[in-house]
């Protein structure tokens, strides 16, 4: 207590420039160099040439344009609010049984998705996303390589994924979807026979839940014909940091906040893969009465 008071007195007396030195002297044994974070960079990551704050562009005209865009978005949001829930009239919300969320007809639609692979951790898989023939579908293709990067700490490798960007409203606020009307995911895909994993990330309130994911499998046929795959939301199991949890619970869709949908391939088989997606939608399957597929007994 007295030491802290003395330190604070010392720092306030000498001014701001010495506060850093005081802090460093306190933490001296824990620092090997002047940076307060580790400088280790994973093998696949790009070296940081410029710090993120140095990329800020202080142009006045650009900021005015940005403000105008955000204000127009806000105006549109207010008009949507006056129309009804989700920007549609209430009758549409009450009666709709299907809804198309993402369809791939232009480059703009492709920009709503982000692709990634194990290259980030030093692996050798490659993944690409482009528009298919006649701009009628998205083609996610690449090569899976399960060779483990030699950095001493990675044990497994070989995954490629495509995730949707979460929707942002005006002023970069999170947009919340209300998917409670629907109970299944409806995908029109043409795969190559490889199994994929469909992941749903609902942006949780607590930061320690940020690795939580709801997943299920999608087995593709590989034929020349398009497949229509229905995955009920009751089948999605809960996992955290890749580990399936014992306490399972269904994904609540009423405030599917900041939701991202992702497709991952990681079936431990080296070789090329390909997935064409026509559209992704939601379906209210009234024949599907299941609430949740796992842990159906009463726990408390």
């Amino acid at each position, binding site marked *: 207590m007295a030491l802290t008071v003395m330190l604070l007195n010392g720092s306030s007396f000498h001014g701001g420039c010495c506060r850093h030195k005081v802090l460093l002297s306190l933490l001296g044994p824990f620092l090997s160099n002047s940076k307060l974070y580790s400088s280790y960079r994973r093998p696949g990551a790009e070296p940081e040439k410029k710090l993120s704050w140095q990329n800020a562009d202080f142009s006045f005209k650009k900021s005015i344009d940005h403000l105008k865009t955000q204000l127009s978005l806000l105006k549109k949001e207010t008009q949507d*609010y006056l129309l*009804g*829930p989700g920007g549609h009239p*209430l009758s549409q*919300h*009450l009666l709709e049984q299907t809804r198309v969320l993402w369809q791939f007809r232009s480059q703009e639609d492709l920009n709503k998705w982000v692709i990634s692979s194990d290259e980030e951790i030093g692996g050798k898989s490659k993944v690409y996303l482009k528009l298919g023939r006649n701009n009628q579908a998205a083609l996610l293709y690449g090569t899976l390589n399960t060779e483990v990067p030699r950095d001493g700490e990675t044990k497994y490798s070989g995954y490629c994924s495509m995730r949707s960007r979460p929707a942002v409203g005006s002023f970069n606020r999170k947009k919340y979807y*209300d998917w*409670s*009307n629907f109970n299944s995911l409806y995908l029109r895909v043409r795969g190559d026979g490889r199994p994929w994993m469909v992941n749903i990330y609902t942006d*949780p*309130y*607590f930061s320690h*839940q940020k690795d*939580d994911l709801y997943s299920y499998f999608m087995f593709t046929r590989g034929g020349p014909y398009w497949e229509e795959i229905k995955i009920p939301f009751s089948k999605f199991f809960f996992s955290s940091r890749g580990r399936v949890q014992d*306490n399972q*619970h*269904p994904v*609540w869709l*009423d*405030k599917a906040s900041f939701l991202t949908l992702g497709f991952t391939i990681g079936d431990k088989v080296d070789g090329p893969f390909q997935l064409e997606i026509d559209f992704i939608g939601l379906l209210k399957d009234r024949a599907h009465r299941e609430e949740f597929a796992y842990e159906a007994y009463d*726990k*408390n």
Partner: protein
Amino acid sequence: MNPQAKLIFTSSLLLGTTITISSNHWIMAWTGLEINTLAVLPLISKSHHPRAIEAATKYFLVQATASILVLFSSMTNAWYTGQWDITQLTHPTSCLIMTAAISMKLGLAPFHFWFPEVLQGSSLITGLLLSTAMKFPPMTLLYMTSQSLNPTLLASMAILSVAIGGWMGLNQTQTRKILAFSSISHLGWMAAIIIYNPKLTLLNFYLYAMMTASVFMILNSMKALKLPTLMTSWTKMPSLSAILLLVLLSLAGLPPMTGFLPKWLIIQELTKQDMAPTAT
């Protein structure tokens, strides 16, 4: 839930409520409020879903802050005036802080943000408890301190609550959130009249509690968590749907129903007190 655990939580709720409503000393009132807060937390987080835990956390933080403010204002009042009696709250700062604290407990705007999310994260029966039983102790405190509350703050919070409760409830599709905003709106009505005629506040509260309890119980029997379920429930339970219609109209305050009575009397009282713009 384990029957013994359920018994402990329910009896703690009753104990907390009884302690608060029968207390003369601020410390006892605070004790009752704290017991209530702690007892209802396991009921909110019963399903162990992350959203239910989130609701319980939000509820706890808000209620704990409000309890702190209650204790702080009663302590400052005791410091200045030497009085711990609930009805003898005289120091102006204490009155201001107490008004803010009780409105935080109740969920009056601008302290209402937690209420819809907490109600959405809990089950329908817990929502019923949160809307009616948990409002009872703070309402009693409001009644007992009615002469010493800050009128400006209370009137502005009342108007804001009624407005926000009405407008935010318009585009909702989840029934629990709709009922949360209706609760905020009704609390605004209750807060508007407390200075002039506290008995009308109590009348409004009792009628509101009965109507809300009926709505929650009907929704619970229909398992209607969202509007489309309500839309299709008439085929299975036509009489219950008809009764729900009547109860909801009563909650809205439409003339032939009982729910119109408190609104009418409040408007009449406000007009008598030269508060016609507020009445509008």
